[in-house]
């Protein structure tokens, strides 16, 4: 087969581009087998999937809204992974960004919306940058493994969030009520991100898509982005080429955290309009910080790849709820499908190498 594609490079390119979709199909097929084993009807389940994700205007808008934080986190992950640093701290960075954006909104309840919203989003961006920058600096200057330090930073961020939401930032109403649910007061309605009525689609989604374009330009069309990628590919060679390696490692993790922080701010201002906690990080983030990594990897660490893959992945939770309602509840399938698609997708590199070898053998 490789030889065939080597002879017809154009067909080879098309095949390569189609691979993610083939992979998804394969994953869905395996998912169907699992559904049958669980005693559910796969046709019904998959139609529920499509219906739940894209069935109506509202469903589509909801899918987009749920996809927004994932896309933002994934963009950050693209920068970090391209820079050769593994950022597992999306959860913590998202939480920190959300908390700081909420603080801004709560501190100036009378400010005009056009002024406050950008300010709040910027503060989320900055807070995430700081939370990502700390492990970045530890990695660059003290050689501390970033996988571990970002995980520790997650835990610390969650502790801080719980502290603030149960104390300083708690809703005055909750303070008087006996239940004392740890959440802040609702932010002023003037601060809501503009919505596309009548759906829940908000400005944040557009912002995320613009950010995707910006990240692409940054990574592939600017000097700094080139340097980050160079450091990620080969730090030693980069150093000999005169690139200040530690600085770019810090920058990669810092920007990565910043986008996660922005995702947190967008979640607060676009969806929840307040901050809340259930004691763990997932209560607020919905594991977007982790799932964003999967999205980025699935999108092959390229901003443009993040978009479609994100659709495929994020549409599934709606599916999950639908199926749960029908009492089949194969929650696992959600991640199985993700994992499988990812596995199949990675075969692409295999194929590309094979294509290259075949072409070379033919030419020589």
């Amino acid at each position: 087969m490789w030889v065939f594609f080597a002879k017809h490079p154009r067909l080879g390119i098309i095949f390569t581009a189609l691979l993610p979709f083939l992979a998804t199909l394969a994953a869905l097929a395996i998912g169907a087998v699992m559904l049958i084993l669980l005693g559910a009807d796969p046709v019904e389940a998959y139609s529920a999937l499509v219906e739940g994700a894209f069935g109506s205007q509202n469903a589509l808008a909801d899918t987009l809204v749920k996809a927004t934080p994932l896309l933002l986190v994934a963009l950050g992950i693209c920068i970090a992974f391209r820079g050769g640093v593994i950022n597992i701290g999306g959860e913590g960075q998202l939480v920190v960004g959300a908390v700081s954006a909420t603080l801004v909104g709560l501190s100036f309840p009378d400010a005009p919306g056009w002024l406050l919203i950008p300010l709040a989003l910027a503060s989320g961006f900055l807070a995430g940058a700081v939370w990502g920058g700390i492990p970045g600096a530890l990695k660059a200057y003290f050689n501390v493994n970033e996988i571990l330090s970002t995980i520790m930073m997650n835990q610390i961020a969650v502790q801080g969030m719980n502290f603030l939401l149960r104390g300083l930032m708690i809703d005055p109403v909750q303070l008087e009520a006996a239940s004392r649910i740890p959440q802040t007061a609702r932010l002023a309605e003037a601060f809501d991100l503009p919505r596309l009525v009548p759906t829940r689609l908000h400005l944040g989604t557009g912002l995320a898509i613009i950010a995707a374009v910006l990240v692409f330009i940054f990574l592939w069309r600017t000097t700094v982005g080139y340097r980050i990628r160079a450091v990620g590919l080969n730090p030693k060679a980069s150093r000999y080429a005169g690139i200040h390696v530690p600085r770019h490692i810090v920058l990669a993790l810092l920007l990565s955290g910043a986008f996660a922080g922005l995702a947190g701010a967008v979640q607060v201002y676009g969806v929840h309009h307040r901050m809340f906690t259930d004691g763990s990080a997932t209560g607020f983030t919905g594991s977007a910080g982790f799932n964003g990594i999967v999205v980025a990897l699935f999108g092959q660490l390229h901003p443009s790849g993040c978009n479609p893959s994100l659709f495929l992945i994020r549409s599934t939770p709606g599916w999950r709820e639908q199926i749960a309602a029908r009492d089949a509840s194969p929650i696992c399938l959600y991640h199985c499908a993700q994992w499988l698609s990812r596995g199949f997708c990675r075969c692409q590199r295999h194929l590309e190498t094979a294509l290259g070898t075949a072409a070379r053998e033919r030419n020589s």
Partner: protein
Amino acid sequence: MNNSELVQTLASILLASAPLMIAVCGEIITERSGIVNLSLDGTMLMAAMTAFVVGLKADNIWVGLLAAMAVGALFAFIVAFGSIRLRQSMFAIGFVLTLLGDDLSAFLGQNYTRIPGPVVKHFAIPVLKDIPILGPIFFDQDAVVYFAFLLVGLTWLLLFRTQPGLRLRSAGERPEAAFARGVDVNRVRYLYAVLGGALVGIAGAAYSLDIKIGWSDGHTRGLGWIALAIVIFGGWSPVRGAVGAILFGATKALATFLQRTFPEVSVVAFNSLPWLLMIGVLLLVSSEVSERLIAIAPRAAQRPLRRMLRVSPPRALGATFVEERTS
């Protein structure tokens, strides 16, 4: 705190850190061979769930334990297979498996939450338990604790005093050289990745059958990551890893103790303490800071200090080995 209370606290610290010690030993074996199994967190969740559910159905903890080992071995095999055979990033596979294990365990275990099940019995070693102070701490414990200590010793012996251990380490340090000397590097890696995974499975089972009995959603969430951190802190040595695990248990106990003593200070400070300490320790062992500290110490103490503090990962850790084709 009087004496008997102190003894009790120490014993409970040992009990709490025993499963971590087991998981750390497993991961050290895996990583010394050159494979990074990042799926620890998911593996332990799956293993804990499997051990409990299977143990409950079969009404036999040993069957549950075996099932947990099989699950751990399977997860590790997927990581090894994906990296060795499919040439994928083992970090990515491990990470996705972490997420998979988390959700799959929640799904498969959803009908078994918060119900009583089989329990590992408390087992005091006769005679030894009557030694004053040391007896109640070390020998009046659960089987998990004895196993953990035994395992630490056995792992050390395997790694540093046997021929298979030498091959294992050579596969992780200099795979090309090992291959040239006739070691089937990838087979070694498969073998020890799976062995390490099975041990991690035991660690997961230890939670659901002994330390934190039963099953609930996210039963051991976070502990796998801690084990991974301790592996690095322990410099890929089982003895230091065990010390790290006990230290982590101790900081947690210390945090609880401090919290009771100073109720006016926020809980956050104490809950964050173990994490901050771990970042600090990682900072200490991985940077130049340790070298500077050693230089201050008296000359006679420098060599042992360096042996204690210096950390260097297996040279070929996380790198796939491709056999050279000689034609």
